[in-house]
């Protein structure tokens, strides 16, 4: 299993349950939509899987590592094998598209020329070959998300987590973006996308996990 969560609970500081007993397994190469209304716990579950939120109780095994036994340093190292896309692209405003997308490789100490070549190729693949030097403010919402996607996959992650990646763009742009995710999945990346946009999920025909009140819902009859 690539991801394995067992009876994961997350409680807020005021002891309110945010995730209540999530048990979940993802095989390598899976493509899963995580759906549910606002406040259902989608982001929290994604953050638990992305090592950005420590569960109050429960166990997580990620890429073969029992997360509970890992120190800060090795957690950072493990995070470098994951990709994260958020609703707001969180690009650094004073860096260009190519610089933003290069960040994870720079942080990992990549050789500058190799990084430049690789990132140029990647940005071309997401359709931004002619916007390499543009700053985030000069890019549309959809373009910004494509830079964010390029940044998330620049490390060739085994697991790509996206939290409402299409939340800020129109449906046309959203579908194009989702298409990129399916392409990546075909190349072997495991993808989990959290979204409340059911109409988009319906058009993709992929596995869907529904969450409500911090609890995973059983799949509907006949699916």
């Amino acid at each position: 299993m690539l991801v394995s969560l067992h009876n994961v609970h997350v409680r807020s500081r005021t002891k309110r349950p945010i995730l209540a007993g999530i048990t979940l397994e993802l095989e390598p190469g899976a493509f899963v939509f995580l759906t549910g209304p606002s406040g259902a716990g989608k982001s929290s579950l994604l953050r638990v899987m992305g090592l950005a939120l420590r569960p109050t109780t429960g166990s997580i095994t990620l890429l073969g590592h029992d997360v509970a036994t890992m120190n800060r340093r090795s957690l950072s190292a493990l995070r470098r094998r994951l990709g994260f896309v958020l609703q707001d692209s969180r690009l650094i405003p004073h860096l260009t598209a190519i610089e933003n997308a290069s960040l994870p490789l720079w942080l990992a100490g990549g050789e500058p020329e190799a990084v430049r070549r690789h990132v140029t190729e990647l940005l071309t693949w997401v359709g931004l070959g002619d916007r390499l030097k543009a700053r985030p403010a000069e890019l549309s919402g959809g373009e910004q998300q494509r830079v964010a996607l390029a940044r998330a996959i620049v490390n060739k992650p085994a697991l790509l987590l996206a939290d409402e990646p299409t939340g800020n763009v129109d449906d046309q742009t959203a579908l194009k973006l989702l298409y990129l995710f399916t392409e990546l999945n075909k190349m072997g990346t495991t993808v989990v996308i959290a979204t409340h946009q059911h109409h988009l999920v319906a058009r993709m025909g992929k596995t869907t996990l529904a969450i409500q009140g911090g609890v995973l819902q059983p799949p509907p009859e006949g699916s």
Partner: protein
Amino acid sequence: MRPLTLLFEGSFRERRVGANLVLLMTLLIYLATVMASLAVGFGGIAWVGERTIQSRATLVIPPASLGSDGSTSDTLPRVFALLKADPSLAPPRVVTTDESRRLLQAWGVDSATLADAPLPILMDLEAVPGARLDLPRLKQTLVAAKITARLDSLADTLATFLPLLRGLSIAALGVVGLVLIVLALGIAFACRSVLTTQRDTLEMLHLMGADDKTLTRLFRAEIRKRAFVAAGVGFVLAAATLAMGAMGARTFLDISFLHPTQDEILVAAGLMALVPVLAVFVACAAARRMAMGQLRAWP
């Protein structure tokens, strides 16, 4: 393509945080350096004074004991013979009449009085290096030889000043400490504000697997860059201020018979130059601490 070191560059440009930080650090480093120089100056004078008291004295032979005609007396040769016999003394130096006049003038005796009065003969006595003057014994020797002369030790005049100088030195040192604390607090607050406004970016970097050490190093580099600028400017300004005060200090040292050695002056200058370096260190440490603290908030 620009290196990773520019990651936080923009955060410090926003709302001119970086420029204001340089200004703040320059002012504080200037203040700390000037105060440290005062501490070193006062402390140094006390130090040299202490040393001088123990090794120097002036033998005053009043005009009366030289004989009224001024030629027949054998007092002077006898005094020389006595002093030479003392192994703890360097060869004594007779202060010329001109020199005596100048010194007395510097101490405020008016020139009319000086012109009329017969001047005593002054002799500078100095212990050989490493030795102390034993004034009571010297006095006894003079009395035994029936020579009427007075031994003026600097101790009498200087000794009263030394505790005051030491007190001022410690007070100035205290101010240096306070200024450095203010510097650390100022940097810490500024860093916290930058880190708070950059929370989303930092979280993203954290998610990318940037470890605390790397991010802290990059963040601290921004502070260090600015601290170096501030240290340079602050030091130059302080040195310029002190150069003006140095003239006065020199005159004071001259008329007080205080002569710091070359080594002592070098040590004092070194201590003064150490302050900006220390300030850079403090600023970086404060930035590092604050960044580490904020990053630790993430799992």
